[in-house]
């Protein structure tokens, strides 16, 4: 595959160069352009206010006189932190929206490309270094829509931005106990530092370095000349022009057999009991997250409530079952990744009911299950499985009643799944 590209990637004759120069190729979608310049605005304000906020000797990034200037501009330092948080929240909101709606068409392919380092990219870095430092005439190896340097910087940004947002929210809204807020602070500063490292190269390359100049205008208009594309992003040019060489797909793995799954779960349950003394549990996650949300709005009411009251600690989320829920989500994503399954939005339903009916049924099922877990004080994983393993009476009764209820309902509503 690769040498085929190399053969076709020949230096251009002057005429071809002229011809390609005045033809335009669309590189960036308008949403990406907007997002880029929005990011620029955010990063400028956040860096200024952020750096101005950090004035202690042990943490300071910029010299004192600069922070005093910013202090002067904002009046009181309280305004600085308010601006910083306000802009941060807006930024996070926009990014999440972009990620949700732009997932399939933009984010997924871009991420896939960024984290897919090839030999060409490494060669590109070497040649770039020779060109800039040793001032040699170079011929770039064929690059995709993002060249090696841009991929490297994009990787840093892709990982560090969510980290910055998450730690930022923890700090701004006391989401976790002080001990973790302390960790959040240094991670936040470290992540910003990493991005800033890449930033100066990114700005120099785009703004001041002549050969890459056209890329800069590309980010304004969204179009670049075909020549620039051919010379700097040959693989992108080929894909755009000839629609070739999409990266190979890995075939998905099959599910485990139920017996192996049972034994695996048994071992996990054993380790849970051995390490912590508690069994597995899932319904607790929903109960405590609901309490945390309600508590955020009406802390007094929740604290005084006869049932919810004793779930309420100073940090309701700081609990075994809640973190088991986070772990569960992590485990699922990891499992999906290693099984090469594709993430796809879907609705599973029987043949003879419509999507809407299926959703309504799920909601009703959820309500009954949610309510039932409160009565029984647990769900399949905590009562049936964990309780069953230690033969707690309520566990076995719960399981038998579950099957009974289930078969009864299944018999009545067999129409939905047939």
């Amino acid at each position, binding site marked *: 595959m690769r040498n085929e590209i190399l053969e076709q990637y020949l230096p251009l004759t002057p005429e071809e160069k002229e011809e390609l120069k005045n033809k335009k190729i669309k590189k960036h979608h308008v949403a990406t352009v907007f997002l880029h310049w929005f990011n620029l605005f955010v990063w400028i304000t956040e860096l200024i206010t952020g750096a101005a906020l950090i004035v*202690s000797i*042990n*943490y300071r990034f910029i010299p004192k006189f600069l922070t005093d200037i910013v202090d002067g501009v904002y009046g009181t330092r309280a305004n600085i932190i308010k601006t910083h948080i306000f802009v941060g929240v807006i930024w996070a909101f926009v990014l999440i929206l972009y990620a949700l709606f732009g997932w399939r068409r933009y984010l997924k392919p871009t991420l896939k490309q960024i984290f897919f380092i090839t030999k060409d990219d490494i060669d590109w870095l070497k040649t770039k270094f020779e060109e800039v430092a040793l001032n040699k005439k170079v011929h770039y190896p064929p690059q995709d829509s993002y060249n090696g340097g841009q991929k490297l910087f994009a990787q840093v940004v892709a990982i560090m931005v969510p980290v910055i947002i998450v730690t930022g929210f923890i700090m701004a809204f*006391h989401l976790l106990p002080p001990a973790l807020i*302390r960790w959040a602070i240094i991670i936040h500063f470290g992540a910003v*530092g990493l991005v800033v490292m890449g930033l100066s190269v990114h700005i120099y390359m785009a703004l001041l370095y002549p050969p890459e100049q056209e890329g800069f205008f590309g980010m304004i208009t969204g179009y670049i000349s075909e020549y620039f594309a051919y010379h700097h992003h040959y693989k992108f040019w080929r894909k755009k022009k000839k629609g070739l060489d999409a990266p190979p797909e890995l075939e998905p793995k099959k599910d485990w057999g139920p017996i192996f799954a049972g034994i695996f779960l048994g071992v996990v349950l054993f380790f849970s009991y051995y390490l912590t003394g508690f069994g597995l549990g899932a319904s607790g996650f929903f109960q405590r997250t609901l309490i945390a949300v309600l508590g955020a709005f009406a802390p007094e009411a929740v604290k005084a409530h006869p049932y919810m009251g004793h779930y309420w600690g100073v940090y309701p989320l700081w609990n075994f079952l809640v973190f088991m829920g986070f772990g569960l989500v992590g485990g699922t994503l990891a499992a999906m990744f290693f099984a090469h399954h594709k993430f796809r939005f879907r609705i599973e339903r029987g043949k003879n009911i419509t999507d809407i009916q299926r959703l309504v049924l799920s909601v009703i099922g959820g309500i009954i299950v949610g309510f039932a877990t409160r009565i029984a004080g647990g769900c399949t994983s905590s009562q049936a499985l964990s309780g069953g393993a230690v033969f707690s009476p309520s566990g076995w009764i719960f399981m038998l009643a579950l099957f009974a209820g289930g078969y009864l309902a299944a018999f009545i509503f067999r129409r939905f799944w047939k």
Partner: protein
Amino acid sequence: MAKYGMVIDLDRCVGCQACMLACKAQWQTPEDYFRTWVKHIGPIQHNDELVLTSFVGQCNHCDNPPCVPACPTQATFKDTDTGIVLVNQELCIGCGYCVEACPYDARFINPVTQKVDKCDFCFPRLGREEPACVKTCIVSAKIFGDLEDSNSDISKKLKTGNTFVIATKKVNPGPNVYYKGRRKNVEAIIKTYPPKKKDTLPAKIWSNVLRPFVILGAGATFVGSLIAYMFQINQGEKEEENEE
């Protein structure tokens, strides 16, 4: 300009804890959190003498307080006019670096406001009324005043000698709360509640690993780009043509 401090006369103090409650009433600190404390010591045997005293403590408003550099956003600072270490509630994000850094455990995180709370020598009452603990002390064991004003009560009391600070050779942030009293009492206090030099793991990692890495890294790329730009300028515009 002034530098406020306090002298606590351990000989006069009877350990009645009125100061703790006056402070709590004035500043509504929640449940069992107190900005000032009276820790009863003894009666214990201290080199062949019986000792029964009270460690009356609060924020010492040190000359170079370890808590101030520990706070990233400088929410806590030593007010230059009065020498009092204050906390700006709006800037504080309740991370607790300063709480960990204080050698006297004089700070705590208020669970209601989720921000740091500490003694501020009754800053809003300054100049009009004595701090609540000084005013209510039934044996006038606490004397508050300006250390730099030589004829203030506190300076006169300090001149009578036998005054100590709770500091050791190793840990001496320059506290401004002095203790007057029999040597055996002060020694018992320092022995039971020594000032500890404390540091948190994240702070250590930050100052020894992350910060140098970030500063060097960002510095390197910035300087690198600068030099590259220099090269670019002195060998004139690089035309597109000689590209091949």
